[in-house]
Protein backbone atom coordinates (compact mmCIF):
# COMPACT_ATOMS: atom_id res chain seq x y z
CA UNK A 1 0.00 0.00 0.00
CA UNK A 2 1.15 3.49 -0.85
CA UNK A 3 0.14 6.25 1.57
CA UNK A 4 0.65 9.90 0.68
CA UNK A 5 0.44 12.55 3.38
CA UNK A 6 0.17 16.26 2.61
CA UNK A 7 2.14 18.67 4.76
CA UNK A 8 2.35 22.43 4.60
CA UNK A 9 4.85 24.90 5.87
CA UNK A 10 3.15 27.77 7.69
CA UNK A 11 4.25 30.81 9.66
CA UNK A 12 4.44 29.88 13.32
CA UNK A 13 1.17 31.07 14.79
CA UNK A 14 3.07 32.01 17.95
CA UNK A 15 4.91 34.71 16.03
CA UNK A 16 3.69 37.89 14.35
CA UNK A 17 2.24 37.16 10.91
CA UNK A 18 2.14 39.73 8.13
CA UNK A 19 1.02 40.17 4.56
CA UNK A 20 3.15 41.48 1.70
CA UNK A 21 2.31 44.62 -0.28
CA UNK A 22 0.49 42.30 -2.73
CA UNK A 23 -1.68 41.03 0.15
CA UNK A 24 -0.22 37.55 0.02
CA UNK A 25 1.27 35.81 3.01
CA UNK A 26 4.68 37.25 3.91
CA UNK A 27 6.52 33.99 4.38
CA UNK A 28 9.68 35.80 5.47
CA UNK A 29 8.03 37.69 8.31
CA UNK A 30 7.57 34.86 10.76
CA UNK A 31 9.29 31.65 11.77
CA UNK A 32 8.29 28.81 9.50
CA UNK A 33 7.13 25.51 10.91
CA UNK A 34 5.26 22.43 9.73
CA UNK A 35 1.52 23.01 10.05
CA UNK A 36 0.74 21.62 13.50
CA UNK A 37 -2.38 19.80 12.29
CA UNK A 38 -0.44 18.05 9.52
CA UNK A 39 1.75 16.24 12.07
CA UNK A 40 -1.38 14.29 13.06
CA UNK A 41 -1.77 13.23 9.42
CA UNK A 42 1.87 12.11 9.41
CA UNK A 43 1.30 10.09 12.58
CA UNK A 44 -1.79 8.46 11.02
CA UNK A 45 0.21 7.49 7.91
CA UNK A 46 3.00 6.00 10.03
CA UNK A 47 0.57 3.98 12.14
CA UNK A 48 -1.10 2.56 9.03
CA UNK A 49 2.31 1.69 7.60
CA UNK A 50 3.23 -0.09 10.84
CA UNK A 51 0.10 -2.23 10.48
CA UNK A 52 -0.02 -2.79 6.74
CA UNK A 53 3.51 -2.17 5.49
CA UNK A 54 3.99 -0.38 2.20
CA UNK A 55 5.41 3.01 1.43
CA UNK A 56 4.81 6.51 2.82
CA UNK A 57 5.37 9.75 0.91
CA UNK A 58 5.12 13.34 2.20
CA UNK A 59 3.91 15.89 -0.36
CA UNK A 60 4.14 19.64 -0.04
CA UNK A 61 3.85 22.67 -2.28
CA UNK A 62 5.72 25.91 -1.72
CA UNK A 63 9.02 27.68 -2.14
CA UNK A 64 12.28 25.69 -1.89
CA UNK A 65 12.41 26.45 1.82
CA UNK A 66 9.20 24.46 2.32
CA UNK A 67 11.36 21.34 2.07
CA UNK A 68 11.94 21.85 5.80
CA UNK A 69 8.33 20.80 6.48
CA UNK A 70 8.88 17.62 4.43
CA UNK A 71 12.15 16.94 6.31
CA UNK A 72 10.21 17.14 9.58
CA UNK A 73 7.85 14.44 8.26
CA UNK A 74 10.85 12.34 7.14
CA UNK A 75 12.37 12.69 10.62
CA UNK A 76 9.14 11.35 12.10
CA UNK A 77 9.51 8.30 9.81
CA UNK A 78 7.95 9.01 6.40
CA UNK A 79 9.97 7.26 3.66
CA UNK A 80 10.37 9.93 1.01
CA UNK A 81 9.24 13.39 0.00
CA UNK A 82 7.94 15.35 -2.98
CA UNK A 83 8.05 19.14 -3.11
CA UNK A 84 6.03 20.83 -5.82
CA UNK A 85 7.90 24.07 -6.31
CA UNK A 86 7.88 26.53 -9.18
CA UNK A 87 7.97 30.32 -9.45
CA UNK A 88 4.74 30.06 -11.47
CA UNK A 89 2.92 28.74 -8.39
CA UNK A 90 3.47 31.86 -6.26
CA UNK A 91 0.23 33.50 -5.18
CA UNK A 92 -1.92 30.42 -5.82
CA UNK A 93 -5.27 30.42 -4.02
CA UNK A 94 -7.05 27.27 -2.82
CA UNK A 95 -8.37 26.46 -6.30
CA UNK A 96 -4.94 26.72 -7.95
CA UNK A 97 -3.18 24.96 -5.04
CA UNK A 98 -5.62 22.06 -5.22
CA UNK A 99 -4.90 21.71 -8.94
CA UNK A 100 -1.14 21.45 -8.45
CA UNK A 101 -1.49 19.03 -5.52
CA UNK A 102 -3.91 16.89 -7.51
CA UNK A 103 -1.48 16.59 -10.43
CA UNK A 104 1.29 15.53 -8.05
CA UNK A 105 -0.97 13.00 -6.33
CA UNK A 106 -1.95 11.54 -9.71
CA UNK A 107 1.74 11.15 -10.54
CA UNK A 108 2.50 9.38 -7.23
CA UNK A 109 -0.70 7.30 -7.56
CA UNK A 110 -1.18 6.41 -3.88
CA UNK A 111 -3.96 4.22 -2.44
CA UNK A 112 -4.69 6.67 0.32
CA UNK A 113 -4.16 10.42 0.79
CA UNK A 114 -4.15 11.76 4.35
CA UNK A 115 -4.39 15.45 5.19
CA UNK A 116 -4.72 17.55 8.32
CA UNK A 117 -8.08 19.18 8.65
CA UNK A 118 -6.81 22.70 7.97
CA UNK A 119 -3.73 24.87 8.04
CA UNK A 120 -3.21 27.36 10.81
CA UNK A 121 -2.46 30.20 8.38
CA UNK A 122 -5.16 30.35 5.73
CA UNK A 123 -7.59 28.28 7.82
CA UNK A 124 -9.78 27.74 4.77
CA UNK A 125 -9.93 23.95 5.17
CA UNK A 126 -11.23 23.61 1.62
CA UNK A 127 -8.14 22.23 -0.12
CA UNK A 128 -8.69 18.56 0.90
CA UNK A 129 -12.26 18.69 -0.45
CA UNK A 130 -11.09 20.34 -3.67
CA UNK A 131 -8.41 17.71 -4.16
CA UNK A 132 -10.93 14.89 -3.58
CA UNK A 133 -13.31 16.52 -6.06
CA UNK A 134 -10.60 16.87 -8.70
CA UNK A 135 -9.40 13.29 -8.19
CA UNK A 136 -12.98 12.03 -8.25
CA UNK A 137 -12.23 10.12 -5.05
CA UNK A 138 -14.42 9.70 -1.99
CA UNK A 139 -13.38 11.72 1.04
CA UNK A 140 -13.67 10.66 4.66
CA UNK A 141 -13.51 13.79 6.79
CA UNK A 142 -12.52 14.57 10.37
CA UNK A 143 -11.27 11.11 11.22
CA UNK A 144 -10.40 10.30 14.81
CA UNK A 145 -9.37 6.79 13.70
CA UNK A 146 -8.75 5.02 10.39
CA UNK A 147 -8.94 1.28 9.68
CA UNK A 148 -7.95 -0.26 6.34
CA UNK A 149 -9.50 -3.62 5.47
CA UNK A 150 -8.86 -4.96 1.99
CA UNK A 151 -10.00 -2.28 -0.42
CA UNK A 152 -11.95 -0.34 2.22
CA UNK A 153 -11.01 2.58 4.43
CA UNK A 154 -13.27 3.07 7.43
CA UNK A 155 -13.07 6.05 9.75
CA UNK A 156 -14.73 7.21 12.94
CA UNK A 157 -15.58 10.87 13.34
CA UNK A 158 -16.89 12.78 16.31
CA UNK A 159 -20.15 14.62 15.76
CA UNK A 160 -21.84 17.25 17.90
CA UNK A 161 -23.11 14.70 20.35
CA UNK A 162 -22.09 11.24 19.16
CA UNK A 163 -20.04 9.67 16.41
CA UNK A 164 -20.28 8.38 12.84
CA UNK A 165 -18.58 5.38 11.32
CA UNK A 166 -18.05 6.01 7.61
CA UNK A 167 -16.50 3.87 4.90
CA UNK A 168 -15.36 4.16 1.30
CA UNK A 169 -13.40 2.15 -1.25
CA UNK A 170 -9.76 2.99 -1.89
CA UNK A 171 -8.28 5.09 -3.30
CA UNK A 172 -9.69 7.74 -1.00
CA UNK A 173 -8.84 10.99 0.76
CA UNK A 174 -8.95 11.09 4.57
CA UNK A 175 -8.71 14.21 6.71
CA UNK A 176 -7.71 13.74 10.32
CA UNK A 177 -8.36 15.89 13.40
CA UNK A 178 -6.01 16.40 16.29
CA UNK A 179 -7.96 14.01 18.45
CA UNK A 180 -6.59 11.26 16.21
CA UNK A 181 -3.42 10.66 18.14
CA UNK A 182 -0.38 12.32 19.63
CA UNK A 183 2.22 12.90 16.90
CA UNK A 184 5.53 11.22 17.74
CA UNK A 185 8.69 13.22 18.25
CA UNK A 186 11.48 12.42 15.81
CA UNK A 187 14.00 10.03 17.39
CA UNK A 188 17.74 10.65 17.11
CA UNK A 189 17.88 7.81 14.59
CA UNK A 190 14.97 9.35 12.71
CA UNK A 191 16.73 12.70 12.49
CA UNK A 192 19.94 11.08 11.24
CA UNK A 193 18.28 8.84 8.67
CA UNK A 194 16.05 11.67 7.37
CA UNK A 195 19.15 13.38 6.00
CA UNK A 196 19.67 10.47 3.59
CA UNK A 197 16.07 10.27 2.41
CA UNK A 198 15.12 11.56 -1.04
CA UNK A 199 12.99 14.65 -1.62
CA UNK A 200 12.09 15.10 -5.28
CA UNK A 201 11.42 18.63 -6.53
CA UNK A 202 8.80 18.84 -9.25
CA UNK A 203 8.02 21.95 -11.28
CA UNK A 204 4.83 22.57 -13.23
CA UNK A 205 6.44 21.20 -16.41
CA UNK A 206 7.05 17.87 -14.63
CA UNK A 207 3.34 17.72 -13.82
CA UNK A 208 1.98 18.91 -17.16
CA UNK A 209 0.42 21.99 -15.57
CA UNK A 210 -0.32 25.02 -17.73
CA UNK A 211 1.20 28.09 -16.04
CA UNK A 212 -2.01 30.04 -16.73
CA UNK A 213 -4.01 27.72 -14.45
CA UNK A 214 -1.92 28.30 -11.30
CA UNK A 215 -0.29 31.19 -9.45
CA UNK A 216 -1.95 34.58 -9.25
CA UNK A 217 -3.29 34.32 -12.81
CA UNK A 218 -4.86 30.90 -12.27
CA UNK A 219 -6.46 31.86 -8.97
CA UNK A 220 -10.17 32.59 -8.73
CA UNK A 221 -9.85 34.82 -5.67
CA UNK A 222 -8.01 38.13 -5.60
CA UNK A 223 -7.37 40.16 -2.50
CA UNK A 224 -8.14 43.80 -3.31
CA UNK A 225 -7.39 45.28 0.10
CA UNK A 226 -6.05 44.26 3.49
CA UNK A 227 -6.77 46.35 6.56
CA UNK A 228 -5.29 45.85 9.99
CA UNK A 229 -7.97 45.74 12.64
CA UNK A 230 -8.06 48.93 14.68
CA UNK A 231 -6.78 48.37 18.19
CA UNK A 232 -9.61 47.70 20.60
CA UNK A 233 -10.25 50.71 22.76
CA UNK A 234 -9.09 50.02 26.27
CA UNK A 235 -11.75 48.56 28.49
CA UNK A 236 -12.42 48.90 32.18
CA UNK A 237 -10.21 46.65 34.32
CA UNK A 238 -10.96 46.60 38.03
CA UNK A 239 -9.56 44.77 41.04
CA UNK A 240 -11.98 42.56 42.93
CA UNK A 241 -12.64 44.87 45.88
CA UNK A 242 -16.12 43.60 46.72
CA UNK A 243 -17.97 45.84 44.26
CA UNK A 244 -16.62 44.23 41.09
CA UNK A 245 -19.51 41.78 40.68
CA UNK A 246 -22.18 44.49 40.84
CA UNK A 247 -20.15 46.68 38.48
CA UNK A 248 -19.87 43.83 35.95
CA UNK A 249 -23.58 43.07 36.06
CA UNK A 250 -24.33 46.82 35.67
CA UNK A 251 -22.06 46.82 32.61
CA UNK A 252 -23.84 43.79 31.11
CA UNK A 253 -27.24 45.35 31.77
CA UNK A 254 -26.14 48.63 30.18
CA UNK A 255 -25.16 46.79 27.02
CA UNK A 256 -28.45 44.84 27.16
CA UNK A 257 -26.59 41.56 27.48
CA UNK A 258 -28.71 40.33 30.39
Amino acid at each position, binding site marked *: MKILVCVKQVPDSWSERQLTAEHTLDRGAADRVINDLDTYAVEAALQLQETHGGQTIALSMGPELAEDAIRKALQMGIDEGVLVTDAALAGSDAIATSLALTKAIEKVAPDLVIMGVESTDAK*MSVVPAMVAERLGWPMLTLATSVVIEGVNATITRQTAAGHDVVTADLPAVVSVVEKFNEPRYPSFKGITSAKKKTVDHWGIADLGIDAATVGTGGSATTVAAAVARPARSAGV*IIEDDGTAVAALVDFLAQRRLI
Partner: protein
Amino acid sequence: MMNAVVVLVDVVDGALTKPSKELLTLARRHGSPVVVAVDTAADAADFGADVCAVIPAVALAEPVASMVDVLAAVCAEHSPALVLMTSTIECKEIAGRLAVRLGGGVVTDAVDVKEGLVVVQPVFGGAITLDATVRGTAVVTMRPGSVEPEASAGAGTPVVLTAPATTRRTVKVLERVAGARSSRPDLAAADVVVSGGRGVGENGFTMVEQLADALGGAVGASRAATDAGWIDHKFQVGQTGTTVSPQLYVALGISGAIQHRAGMQTAKTVVVVNKDRTAPLFDLADFGIVGDVASLVPAIVAEIAARRA
Protein backbone atom coordinates in the same frame (compact mmCIF):
# COMPACT_ATOMS: atom_id res chain seq x y z
CA MET B 1 -34.56 39.98 -13.97
CA MET B 2 -32.53 40.13 -10.79
CA ASN B 3 -29.51 37.89 -10.42
CA ALA B 4 -30.10 34.75 -8.43
CA VAL B 5 -28.22 34.14 -5.19
CA VAL B 6 -28.26 30.47 -4.23
CA VAL B 7 -28.48 29.93 -0.46
CA LEU B 8 -28.04 26.59 1.31
CA VAL B 9 -30.09 26.74 4.50
CA ASP B 10 -30.54 24.60 7.59
CA VAL B 11 -33.86 23.84 9.20
CA VAL B 12 -34.00 22.63 12.80
CA ASP B 13 -37.26 21.83 14.60
CA GLY B 14 -39.36 23.21 11.75
CA ALA B 15 -37.71 26.64 11.53
CA LEU B 16 -34.74 28.18 9.74
CA THR B 17 -31.71 28.41 11.99
CA LYS B 18 -30.53 31.92 12.88
CA PRO B 19 -27.38 31.60 10.72
CA SER B 20 -29.64 30.64 7.77
CA LYS B 21 -31.78 33.76 8.33
CA GLU B 22 -28.55 35.77 8.30
CA LEU B 23 -27.60 34.23 4.93
CA LEU B 24 -30.97 35.12 3.43
CA THR B 25 -30.79 38.70 4.76
CA LEU B 26 -27.40 39.08 3.09
CA ALA B 27 -28.53 37.33 -0.10
CA ARG B 28 -31.37 39.84 -0.61
CA ARG B 29 -28.84 42.67 -0.88
CA HIS B 30 -27.28 41.00 -3.91
CA GLY B 31 -30.19 39.50 -5.82
CA SER B 32 -33.10 37.14 -5.71
CA PRO B 33 -32.60 34.37 -3.13
CA VAL B 34 -32.98 30.80 -4.36
CA VAL B 35 -33.05 28.59 -1.27
CA VAL B 36 -31.90 24.99 -1.26
CA ALA B 37 -33.03 22.97 1.77
CA VAL B 38 -33.35 19.36 2.85
CA ASP B 39 -36.94 18.10 3.32
CA THR B 40 -38.44 21.54 4.05
CA ALA B 41 -37.57 25.18 3.50
CA ALA B 42 -39.74 26.04 6.54
CA ASP B 43 -40.15 29.82 6.91
CA ALA B 44 -37.56 30.76 4.26
CA ALA B 45 -40.14 32.78 2.28
CA ASP B 46 -40.61 35.03 5.33
CA PHE B 47 -36.93 35.92 5.03
CA GLY B 48 -37.03 36.72 1.35
CA ALA B 49 -36.67 33.40 -0.47
CA ASP B 50 -38.10 33.77 -3.98
CA VAL B 51 -37.58 30.09 -4.78
CA CYS B 52 -37.71 27.36 -2.13
CA ALA B 53 -36.05 24.30 -3.69
CA VAL B 54 -36.32 21.23 -1.48
CA ILE B 55 -34.49 17.94 -1.80
CA PRO B 56 -35.86 14.98 0.19
CA ALA B 57 -33.27 13.67 2.67
CA VAL B 58 -33.77 10.14 1.34
CA ALA B 59 -32.55 11.29 -2.08
CA LEU B 60 -29.17 12.28 -0.66
CA ALA B 61 -26.95 9.19 -0.79
CA GLU B 62 -24.16 11.12 0.93
CA PRO B 63 -24.57 14.24 3.06
CA VAL B 64 -21.80 16.20 1.33
CA ALA B 65 -21.09 14.92 -2.18
CA SER B 66 -24.78 14.46 -3.03
CA MET B 67 -25.51 18.00 -1.87
CA VAL B 68 -22.73 19.20 -4.19
CA ASP B 69 -24.53 17.44 -7.07
CA VAL B 70 -27.81 19.11 -6.11
CA LEU B 71 -26.28 22.58 -5.76
CA ALA B 72 -24.37 22.23 -9.03
CA ALA B 73 -27.67 21.42 -10.79
CA VAL B 74 -29.43 24.40 -9.17
CA CYS B 75 -26.52 26.66 -10.15
CA ALA B 76 -26.65 25.38 -13.72
CA GLU B 77 -30.29 26.42 -13.87
CA HIS B 78 -30.05 29.82 -12.12
CA SER B 79 -26.47 30.93 -13.00
CA PRO B 80 -25.86 32.73 -9.69
CA ALA B 81 -22.87 35.04 -9.24
CA LEU B 82 -22.99 34.24 -5.51
CA VAL B 83 -23.65 31.06 -3.50
CA LEU B 84 -23.96 31.42 0.27
CA MET B 85 -23.74 28.86 3.06
CA THR B 86 -22.82 28.84 6.74
CA SER B 87 -19.21 28.26 7.84
CA THR B 88 -19.52 24.75 9.20
CA ILE B 89 -17.03 21.98 8.52
CA GLU B 90 -19.57 20.19 6.34
CA CYS B 91 -20.43 23.33 4.36
CA LYS B 92 -16.75 24.14 3.81
CA GLU B 93 -16.34 20.73 2.18
CA ILE B 94 -19.44 21.33 0.07
CA ALA B 95 -18.14 24.82 -0.84
CA GLY B 96 -14.71 23.55 -1.88
CA ARG B 97 -16.12 20.82 -4.08
CA LEU B 98 -18.78 23.10 -5.57
CA ALA B 99 -16.21 25.76 -6.50
CA VAL B 100 -14.16 23.16 -8.39
CA ARG B 101 -17.32 21.93 -10.11
CA LEU B 102 -18.43 25.46 -11.11
CA GLY B 103 -14.95 26.72 -11.97
CA GLY B 104 -15.44 29.48 -9.40
CA GLY B 105 -13.66 30.42 -6.20
CA VAL B 106 -14.21 30.05 -2.48
CA VAL B 107 -13.97 32.37 0.48
CA THR B 108 -14.66 30.80 3.88
CA ASP B 109 -15.43 32.39 7.26
CA ALA B 110 -16.53 35.65 5.65
CA VAL B 111 -18.27 38.30 7.75
CA ASP B 112 -19.82 40.35 4.94
CA VAL B 113 -20.36 40.55 1.19
CA LYS B 114 -20.29 44.17 0.09
CA GLU B 115 -21.54 45.86 -3.08
CA GLY B 116 -19.87 44.46 -6.19
CA LEU B 117 -19.53 41.07 -4.47
CA VAL B 118 -16.52 42.12 -2.43
CA VAL B 119 -16.16 39.44 0.23
CA VAL B 120 -14.90 40.55 3.64
CA GLN B 121 -12.80 37.94 5.43
CA PRO B 122 -10.91 38.36 8.70
CA VAL B 123 -7.62 36.44 8.76
CA PHE B 124 -4.96 35.73 11.38
CA GLY B 125 -7.61 35.64 14.06
CA GLY B 126 -9.12 38.96 13.01
CA ALA B 127 -5.85 40.92 13.13
CA ILE B 128 -6.25 41.69 9.42
CA THR B 129 -9.39 42.00 7.30
CA LEU B 130 -9.22 41.17 3.60
CA ASP B 131 -11.48 42.41 0.82
CA ALA B 132 -11.54 39.60 -1.73
CA THR B 133 -13.07 39.40 -5.17
CA VAL B 134 -13.81 36.17 -6.97
CA ARG B 135 -13.61 35.39 -10.67
CA GLY B 136 -16.55 33.24 -11.72
CA THR B 137 -19.16 32.15 -9.20
CA ALA B 138 -18.25 33.19 -5.66
CA VAL B 139 -18.94 30.39 -3.20
CA VAL B 140 -18.89 32.03 0.23
CA THR B 141 -19.30 30.50 3.67
CA MET B 142 -20.38 33.03 6.29
CA ARG B 143 -19.43 33.09 9.92
CA PRO B 144 -22.59 32.95 12.07
CA GLY B 145 -23.45 36.16 13.87
CA SER B 146 -22.07 38.46 11.15
CA VAL B 147 -25.37 39.81 9.80
CA GLU B 148 -28.45 41.01 11.69
CA PRO B 149 -31.32 38.84 10.37
CA GLU B 150 -34.34 40.80 9.10
CA ALA B 151 -37.64 39.35 7.92
CA SER B 152 -38.88 40.27 4.45
CA ALA B 153 -41.46 38.44 2.35
CA GLY B 154 -40.27 36.63 -0.77
CA ALA B 155 -42.25 34.85 -3.48
CA GLY B 156 -41.35 31.46 -1.99
CA THR B 157 -42.13 29.49 -5.15
CA PRO B 158 -41.82 25.82 -4.12
CA VAL B 159 -39.71 23.44 -6.20
CA VAL B 160 -39.03 19.78 -5.46
CA LEU B 161 -35.55 18.68 -6.54
CA THR B 162 -34.42 15.21 -7.51
CA ALA B 163 -30.92 13.91 -6.95
CA PRO B 164 -28.87 14.11 -10.15
CA ALA B 165 -27.49 10.77 -11.37
CA THR B 166 -23.86 10.16 -10.46
CA THR B 167 -21.22 7.57 -11.20
CA ARG B 168 -19.01 8.81 -8.38
CA ARG B 169 -17.71 6.27 -5.89
CA THR B 170 -19.61 6.99 -2.70
CA VAL B 171 -19.00 7.25 1.00
CA LYS B 172 -21.30 5.06 3.11
CA VAL B 173 -22.34 5.82 6.66
CA LEU B 174 -22.19 2.49 8.51
CA GLU B 175 -23.18 3.72 11.90
CA ARG B 176 -24.51 6.98 13.28
CA VAL B 177 -24.59 7.31 17.04
CA ALA B 178 -26.33 10.43 18.21
CA GLY B 179 -25.80 11.34 21.82
CA ALA B 180 -28.04 13.49 23.95
CA ARG B 181 -28.58 16.90 22.42
CA SER B 182 -27.47 19.74 24.60
CA SER B 183 -30.09 22.23 25.71
CA ARG B 184 -27.47 24.95 25.31
CA PRO B 185 -27.00 26.83 22.04
CA ASP B 186 -24.49 25.62 19.46
CA LEU B 187 -21.04 27.01 20.25
CA ALA B 188 -20.25 28.36 16.77
CA ALA B 189 -23.53 30.26 16.43
CA ALA B 190 -24.22 31.27 20.05
CA ASP B 191 -24.87 34.93 20.92
CA VAL B 192 -23.18 34.40 24.28
CA VAL B 193 -20.18 32.16 24.97
CA VAL B 194 -18.75 31.52 28.45
CA SER B 195 -15.34 29.82 28.33
CA GLY B 196 -13.14 28.37 31.02
CA GLY B 197 -9.39 27.87 31.02
CA ARG B 198 -6.59 26.60 33.18
CA GLY B 199 -7.56 29.08 35.92
CA VAL B 200 -10.96 27.47 36.60
CA GLY B 201 -9.34 24.22 37.77
CA GLU B 202 -10.27 20.61 37.28
CA ASN B 203 -13.69 20.88 38.91
CA GLY B 204 -14.47 24.40 37.77
CA PHE B 205 -16.52 23.67 34.67
CA THR B 206 -19.69 23.29 36.70
CA MET B 207 -19.53 26.99 37.50
CA VAL B 208 -18.66 27.82 33.87
CA GLU B 209 -21.86 25.99 32.88
CA GLN B 210 -23.84 27.79 35.56
CA LEU B 211 -22.79 31.20 34.26
CA ALA B 212 -23.42 30.08 30.65
CA ASP B 213 -26.93 29.03 31.64
CA ALA B 214 -27.54 32.27 33.54
CA LEU B 215 -26.63 34.19 30.36
CA GLY B 216 -28.38 31.74 27.98
CA GLY B 217 -25.06 30.99 26.33
CA ALA B 218 -22.86 28.17 25.11
CA VAL B 219 -19.92 26.71 27.03
CA GLY B 220 -16.42 26.99 25.59
CA ALA B 221 -12.90 26.21 26.76
CA SER B 222 -9.28 26.99 26.12
CA ARG B 223 -6.95 24.32 24.76
CA ALA B 224 -5.26 24.10 28.18
CA ALA B 225 -8.58 22.98 29.70
CA THR B 226 -9.42 20.49 26.95
CA ASP B 227 -5.89 19.07 26.88
CA ALA B 228 -6.09 18.59 30.65
CA GLY B 229 -9.20 16.50 30.01
CA TRP B 230 -11.45 18.73 32.13
CA ILE B 231 -13.88 19.13 29.23
CA ASP B 232 -14.31 17.55 25.79
CA HIS B 233 -12.23 18.86 22.85
CA LYS B 234 -15.37 19.84 20.95
CA PHE B 235 -15.77 22.79 23.33
CA GLN B 236 -12.39 24.24 22.44
CA VAL B 237 -12.43 27.83 21.19
CA GLY B 238 -9.44 28.94 19.15
CA GLN B 239 -7.20 28.26 16.24
CA THR B 240 -7.55 24.49 16.30
CA GLY B 241 -11.07 24.51 17.72
CA THR B 242 -14.21 26.51 17.00
CA THR B 243 -14.10 30.15 15.91
CA VAL B 244 -16.81 32.17 17.63
CA SER B 245 -18.10 35.68 17.01
CA PRO B 246 -20.71 36.21 19.73
CA GLN B 247 -22.29 39.39 21.10
CA LEU B 248 -20.72 38.54 24.46
CA TYR B 249 -17.65 36.44 25.22
CA VAL B 250 -16.83 35.74 28.86
CA ALA B 251 -13.37 34.28 29.51
CA LEU B 252 -12.84 32.74 32.94
CA GLY B 253 -9.30 31.90 34.00
CA ILE B 254 -7.98 32.07 30.42
CA SER B 255 -4.64 33.81 29.97
CA GLY B 256 -5.23 34.38 26.25
CA ALA B 257 -2.60 32.64 24.12
CA ILE B 258 -2.64 33.96 20.55
CA GLN B 259 -4.24 30.69 19.41
CA HIS B 260 -7.18 31.27 21.74
CA ARG B 261 -7.54 34.94 20.82
CA ALA B 262 -7.64 33.92 17.16
CA GLY B 263 -10.90 32.09 17.85
CA MET B 264 -12.76 34.81 19.73
CA GLN B 265 -11.41 38.28 19.11
CA THR B 266 -14.20 39.32 16.78
CA ALA B 267 -16.64 39.02 19.71
CA LYS B 268 -18.56 42.30 20.14
CA THR B 269 -18.10 42.50 23.91
CA VAL B 270 -15.38 40.68 25.85
CA VAL B 271 -15.43 40.14 29.62
CA VAL B 272 -12.34 38.69 31.29
CA VAL B 273 -11.99 37.34 34.82
CA ASN B 274 -8.49 36.29 35.84
CA LYS B 275 -6.42 36.54 38.99
CA ASP B 276 -3.33 37.41 36.96
CA ARG B 277 -3.41 41.10 35.98
CA THR B 278 -0.73 40.44 33.32
CA ALA B 279 -2.89 37.91 31.38
CA PRO B 280 -2.76 39.05 27.71
CA LEU B 281 -6.50 38.56 27.32
CA PHE B 282 -7.08 41.69 29.45
CA ASP B 283 -5.86 43.65 26.39
CA LEU B 284 -9.04 42.58 24.58
CA ALA B 285 -11.37 43.08 27.55
CA ASP B 286 -14.18 45.60 27.45
CA PHE B 287 -14.66 44.77 31.11
CA GLY B 288 -12.16 42.87 33.21
CA ILE B 289 -12.01 41.79 36.83
CA VAL B 290 -8.70 40.91 38.44
CA GLY B 291 -9.70 38.34 41.03
CA ASP B 292 -10.40 34.76 41.95
CA VAL B 293 -12.68 32.98 39.47
CA ALA B 294 -13.85 30.45 42.08
CA SER B 295 -15.41 33.12 44.31
CA LEU B 296 -16.41 35.65 41.62
CA VAL B 297 -18.35 33.38 39.24
CA PRO B 298 -20.90 32.10 41.77
CA ALA B 299 -21.36 35.70 42.92
CA ILE B 300 -21.98 36.86 39.34
CA VAL B 301 -24.52 34.05 38.82
CA ALA B 302 -26.28 35.05 42.05
CA GLU B 303 -26.26 38.76 41.15
CA ILE B 304 -27.81 38.07 37.71
CA ALA B 305 -30.50 35.92 39.35
CA ALA B 306 -31.18 38.62 41.95
CA ARG B 307 -31.64 41.34 39.29
CA ARG B 308 -34.06 39.15 37.39
CA ALA B 309 -36.10 38.24 40.46
